[in-house]
């Protein structure tokens, strides 16, 4: 082995080790933040004063509901960025960013929907209603699940990346539609950020401890998203490397 090859191998191994340590630190921070979120949501945050009984207890689902929706939003936004950068640079690493973001976004989006469905039973007296916000969220999730199925249908790696990037660009249109649906259409879903919905059922005022818990939830879910994204992105890179090796052998 030549000196330059040996140096390159050593540098690559050192980089891989430091990346691995970085990811381990990130995952430890994520676990701590998620633990803090559980404590804050269940014990620290004061209950909503205008609610009572089961509705008041169930209100604590709010922190996981909002945390996961923020994580899902960041995931879908990153998938948009990934697809745009891929289409400009044609670098497969960005296609992997898009795929990993979509996968994690689906998990967090499904978490949002699940938490919302369970919370709506004591609040709206039903697990499911075709409210504009819930309907558009479901459409968004289905569009992104279809993205993953669509990818699997294309064999050529570059063609798959190109077409699925174009798909991801258009799929993102459903994200702002979901955000504005409770404002544009008649909805009973409360509006948490920038505004209020007079028709909303189950609304409550956010006090100081609630706001602090909301920040913990946002941070915890951002960390969770980052940890899962990095792990999945590296896994997809390994998958492509295996594909390349297999082609080389054949």
């Amino acid at each position: 082995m030549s000196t330059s090859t040996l140096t390159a191998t050593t540098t690559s191994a050192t980089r891989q080790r430091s990346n691995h340590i970085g990811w381990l630190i990130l995952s430890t921070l994520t676990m701590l933040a998620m633990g803090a979120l559980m404590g804050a949501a269940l014990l620290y945050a004061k209950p909503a004063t205008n609610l009572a009984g089961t509705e008041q207890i169930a209100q604590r689902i709010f922190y996981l509901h909002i945390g996961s929706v923020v994580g899902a939003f960041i995931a879908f936004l990153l998938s948009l960025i990934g697809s745009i950068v891929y289409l400009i640079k044609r670098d497969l690493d960005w296609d992997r960013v898009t795929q990993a973001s979509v996968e994690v976004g689906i998990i967090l989006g499904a978490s949002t929907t699940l938490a919302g469905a369970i919370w709506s039973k004591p609040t709206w007296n039903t697990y499911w209603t075709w409210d504009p916000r819930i309907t558009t969220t479901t459409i968004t999730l289905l569009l992104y699940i279809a993205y993953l199925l669509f990818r699997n249908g294309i064999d050529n790696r570059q063609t798959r990346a190109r077409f699925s990037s174009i798909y991801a660009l258009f799929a993102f249109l459903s994200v702002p539609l979901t955000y504005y649906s409770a404002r544009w259409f008649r909805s009973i879903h409360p509006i948490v950020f920038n505004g209020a919905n007079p028709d909303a059922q189950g609304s409550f005022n956010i006090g100081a401890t609630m706001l602090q818990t909301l920040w913990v939830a946002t941070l915890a879910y951002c960390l969770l998203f980052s940890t899962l994204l990095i792990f999945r992105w590296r896994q997809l890179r390994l998958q492509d490397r295996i594909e390349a090796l297999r082609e080389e052998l054949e």
Partner: protein
Amino acid sequence: MTFLAAAFIGLWLLVMAYVIYLGQRQGQLEQELHSLEEAMTDRGRQ
């Protein structure tokens, strides 16, 4: 309390299921990479 517990458990299960899937996939990929590397070494020897 039932709704609160159901939501918290449900969300954790969802995330854990994805983490387990990622772990299993990682194991499969590492095994595949190992066997490919062995096949390449064998070919190199021949």
